[in-house]
């Protein structure tokens, strides 16, 4: 017998024991997350009750839903007193909810195509790393294509508009070497002269490659919300940048103008601005002119959005270290150059999440146009559909559908914004 035999030496590892049942798997998770203390347990039970209540209330309503009747009373007949949604209002009126009640039915493909193209146009902007920069050309062309598709009319209108901008840009490039201000002035002036000249062609070219024209008054439904949102946000971006620069400027008069404008617009509710568009703006235009309500609304919403975007960009400008401004100066760049090449690219990058927030807020606010008798999605629901004999009293289905549409779009945008924020963060390690 030797010591070796007496002593116990383990030669292999002890097999891992199962953790106690309370410390593993679902039980552990439940304990830690749901029942860690008395108050927590109470909270959990309350929350479970809330979920149960919601599901038990909406579950049968969703499952028993009726999709193929043509009026509420038929719906009720089918349901025979059971709880159930009358979703047939959606299947019957989907086109009115999406396009408004006046947009010609056989032309629905045009706004739909414009909507699809919107993604093509936005892709290179939103995912600049995936798509080649050259696709930005599409983005630039998109407004003109979309205008042609949605409003119809001769193709020359958007082409002339585009040519005017191109011409203006060329003149700007020529004059920019003398001075930035000259370039800007010259460019804008050229574009306007070109537009006024081509505008005089008027009737004579109305038939060239014309799509059936649709008046702005005929647009409605969710399409109108999307249009207002997209148009106003894209128009307000450049305006907002100018306003933000103006507000940061050292020139007192320009600064005062910008501050007053921004603070005034931010101080009043959008609805008062829409009232202005609706009932006051006409007084300030030359006698006899009147342009479309939709255009007046676009002007006011654009002003509204640009003030908010200006504040976001001002935040971005202020967040840049002083050294960046000084760096620009020390390189001998003039104001326009240092803004264009040094300050704005950085400031805008910081401001993107804020701008996206403003955009989402603005898109939601486009529903306010229903208050001034425009038939956007909410306007369609509150007006023609709920007023019709067939669907008088179908609230939840319609409001739920509207809420869902907005939720999908807005949630999508805000998720994108968060994704983008993470992308931007990884840039500086």
């Amino acid at each position, binding site marked *: 017998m030797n010591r070796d035999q007496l002593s116990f030496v383990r030669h292999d590892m002890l097999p891992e024991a199962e953790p106690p049942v309370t410390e593993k798997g679902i039980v552990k998770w439940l304990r830690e997350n749901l029942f860690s203390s008395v108050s927590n347990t109470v909270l959990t039970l309350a929350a479970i009750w809330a979920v149960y209540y919601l599901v038990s209330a909406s579950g049968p309503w969703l499952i028993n839903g009726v999709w193929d009747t043509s009026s509420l009373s038929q719906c009720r007949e089918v349901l025979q007193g059971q709880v159930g949604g009358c979703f047939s209002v959606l299947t019957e009126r989907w086109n009115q909810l999406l396009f408004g009640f006046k947009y010609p039915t056989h032309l629905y493909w045009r706004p739909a195509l414009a909507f699809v193209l919107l993604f093509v146009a936005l892709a290179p902007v939103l995912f600049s790393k995936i798509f080649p920069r050259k696709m930005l050309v599409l983005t630039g062309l998109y407004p003109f294509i979309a205008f042609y598709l949605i*409003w119809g*009319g001769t193709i020359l209108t958007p082409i002339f508009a585009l040519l005017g901008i191109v011409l203006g840009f060329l003149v700007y490039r020529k004059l920019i070497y003398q001075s930035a201000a000259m370039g800007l002035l010259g460019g804008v002036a050229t574009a306007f002269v070109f537009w006024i000249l081509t505008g005089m062609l008027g009737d004579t070219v109305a038939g060239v490659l014309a799509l059936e024209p649709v008046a702005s008054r005929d647009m409605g439904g969710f399409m109108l919300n999307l249009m207002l949102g997209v148009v106003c946000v894209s128009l307000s971006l450049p305006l907002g940048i100018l306003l933000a620069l103006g507000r940061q400027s050292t020139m007192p008069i320009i600064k005062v103008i910008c501050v007053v404008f921004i603070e005034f617009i931010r101080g009043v509710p959008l609805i008062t601005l829409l009232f202005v568009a609706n009932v006051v703006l006409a007084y300030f235009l030359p006698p006899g002119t009147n342009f479309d309500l939709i255009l007046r609304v676009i002007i006011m919403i654009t002003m509204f959005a640009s003030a908010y975007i200006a504040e976001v960009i001002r935040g971005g400008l202020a967040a840049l270290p002083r050294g960046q401004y000084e760096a620009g100066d020390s390189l001998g760049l003039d104001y326009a150059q240092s803004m264009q090449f040094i300050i704005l690219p950085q400031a805008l990058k910081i401001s993107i999440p804020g701008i996206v927030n403003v955009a989402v807020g603005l898109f939601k606010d486009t529903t306010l146009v229903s208050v001034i008798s425009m038939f956007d999605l909410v306007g369609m629901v509150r*007006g023609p559909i709920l*007023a019709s004999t067939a669907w008088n009293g179908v609230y939840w289905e319609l409001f739920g559908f509207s809420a869902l549409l907005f939720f999908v779009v807005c949630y999508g945008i805000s998720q994108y914004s968060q994704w983008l924020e993470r992308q931007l963060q990884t840039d500086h390690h």
Partner: protein
Amino acid sequence: MKKTVFFGALTAAGLAAGMASAATLDDVKAKGFLQCGVTTGLVGFAAPDANGEWTGFDVGVCRAVAAAIFGDPTAVKFTPTTGKTRFTALASGEVDMLARNTTWTFSRDVDLKFEFNGVNYYDGQGFMIPKNLGVTSAKELDGATVCIQTGTTTELNLADFFRKNNISYEPVPIETNAEGNQQYLAGACDAYTTDASGLASTRATFENPQDHVILPEIISKEPLGPLVRHGDHEWGDVVRWTLNALIAAEELGVTSANVDELAKGTNNPEVNRLLGTEGNLGEMLGLSGDWAVNAIKAGGNYGELFETHIGENTPIGLARGLNAQWTDGGLLYSPPFR
């Protein structure tokens, strides 16, 4: 000119100088269509049908005016307006005429500076209540909750009525007729008040119209008529006499069915003058000689319009009442065409 929005905005300044606001008729002729302000939707008077086409009694007046000018009742575009926006829309030139059951009042005519071109419907404000409430007179409505459309004369009449009878009520202001429907049907108000014709039209859209009654009291005079901007008398005359032509046509027995026949000439000089086979009334208005023929053909004479859209054989089911010809004891009385 087919103005697109785009050019419209850009060339607005340039065009503006040329468009004096005084000559609406010329403007309308130049743009090729009539822009008519109507309600956002009141079945029977003006409401878009399932295809988005506007139809109704007020719409009929617009179409008649368009037909009188262009010979084409479809040369008209409709702008839906609310109580709030209608006057600005007219004043600013967004619409050329307003046919939106608008009450002719002193202050609207004199202070707001509009020109009313006659009356196409003599109305009065009434109350609608659910039958099971058991109320038979508006004076029993003490303490009731009343739904009322804002921005109309009804609001002021209501305040006056309850004040005069020294009873109290709770007003629930609503913006459009559609919302009024919902509130009333949901029982959020005991009574709904607006012009009696509007009540009838609203009731017609209910699932069970027989469960609701319109109380006998008519608490106000509401002469509803088309109106135009103040100061443009030529244009005002076109609208006024188109309406009169429709009324006179009924009186003279001219209908959309026989108007073509009668336009070849009759032995009634007044019919001949109206239909342009005698005299030159059309030219005096700045229109073609057969203006009235076109106006009548558009939707028929006054009586036909009434019967098609709001008469007793429609769901609205309004009796002629005050809106009968003077020869039948009503108030419709067109000045003579000579």
